[in-house]
């Protein structure tokens, strides 16, 4: 690459449209997986809490899934379900489950027992207790899980670029740039995906601050 400038700005500005599309695709794929994953995880977590005995089994299953690298899972899914958005979304959703379920369960476990007893004694119905006491107090750990899952999913979407040109969101530019030895493209894909992940991380932190105003008040004791 001698003689060539590091960044070809002309290429960049000529491709702003497609780049924006890729960003959109990236957000869409990640968002869909996180959304579906969260819904399923909530159900699984609820079951784990009700039937404690199932929890170790679910944990082991989840850890097992996580040790299989996404890089391997994507092609496998393609063989099984063919090349489509589904073959990308299924592994993404599965990976979010691993991160969500333990955090949701831990979130609800973290609600102090005396708070629950007081709530019962004061006269909350069980559904009122769930919505007004347990859920707000479980939020910190649940959002921590959301943060992990969102950032990790954004990273995994880049990997899905190995499946073909129409996949991968910003990962497409990384791979394509690599194959063509085109540094600008690699930089666009790489830096933007990292930026996207960082933004999502930051967004989740803000969300947590928003949802837990009482946490900020700590350590201001007399």
């Amino acid at each position, binding site marked *: 690459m001698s003689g060539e400038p590091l960044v070809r700005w002309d290429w960049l500005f000529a491709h702003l449209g497609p780049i924006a599309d890729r960003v959109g695709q990236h957000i869409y794929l990640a968002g869909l997986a996180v959304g579906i994953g969260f819904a399923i995880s909530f159900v699984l977590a609820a079951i784990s809490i009700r039937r404690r005995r199932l929890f170790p089994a679910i944990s082991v299953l989840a*850890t097992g899934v996580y*040790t299989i690298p996404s*890089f*391997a899972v994507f092609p496998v899914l393609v063989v099984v379900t063919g090349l489509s958005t589904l073959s990308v979304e299924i592994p993404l959703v599965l990976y979010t489950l691993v991160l969500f379920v333990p955090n949701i369960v831990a979130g609800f476990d973290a609600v102090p027992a005396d708070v629950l007893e007081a709530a019962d004694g004061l006269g909350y119905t069980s559904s009122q207790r769930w919505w007004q006491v347990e859920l707000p107090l479980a939020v910190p750990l649940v959002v921590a899980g959301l943060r*992990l899952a969102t950032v990790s999913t954004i*990273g995994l979407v880049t990997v899905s670029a*190995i499946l073909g040109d129409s996949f991968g969101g910003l990962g497409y530019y990384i791979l394509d740039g690599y194959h063509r*030895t085109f540094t600008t493209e690699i930089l666009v894909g790489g830096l933007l995906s990292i930026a996207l992940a960082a933004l999502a991380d930051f967004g989740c932190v803000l969300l947590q601050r928003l949802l837990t105003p009482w946490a900020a008040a700590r350590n201001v004791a007399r």
Partner: protein
Amino acid sequence: MDILTATAQWLTDPAHWQGTNGIPWRLLEHVALSGVSLILSGCVAMPLGLWIGHTGRFSWLVVSSANAWRALPSFAVIGLLVPFTTSIDRNLGFTLYPTVIAMIVLAGPPILVNSYQGVAGVDRDLVEAARGMGMRERQVLFGVEMPIALPVLATGVRSAAVQVIATATLGAEFGFGGLGRYLVLGEANQDNGELFGGVVLVAALALTTLALFTLLERRVVSSGLRTRTAN
């Protein structure tokens, strides 16, 4: 033929166990790279984490490091490194360095964070008692804090190891060998046996690593400390 048969056939074919594209060689590449990255990363991250935990200074470094880990897609990191490492060394910079560096970056934060948390989580009364007995700072760190911090520390190393083993497969997409090669080749050649064979090998290696480190933890951690360690 169906996938299971193809995979079984591929795995049992003796030709696949020889040569530079053979399973033993690829396995060795993979484990070697993972091991080297882990050790290099640990040599920096662990002492740093222990020191920060012991003195309490620069704890912001740990917090931001933990965040950075989560926000870095490894695929992007490896890809981004390629043009830079290639300009340093045409050959290795293309095949080896990007993956090694990315894995070092990946392994760092879990080891750093857990080393810090392990030491910082030691009951302050114990530390004071040790100091009160006349132990010097270094003795306090190595004689009291580290042994107690060991479970948390070990979990961090295990977590980093499994992550690295699993993510090193990505390197194959960017010029490295290792078990990821089979996934790349299998996909390119539409050879299901090779693809799934690779998946089986990678999964087996990852799970073995997990089991090995868990056993190691059991050995190393004093039985007096054996409680349910949270992740």
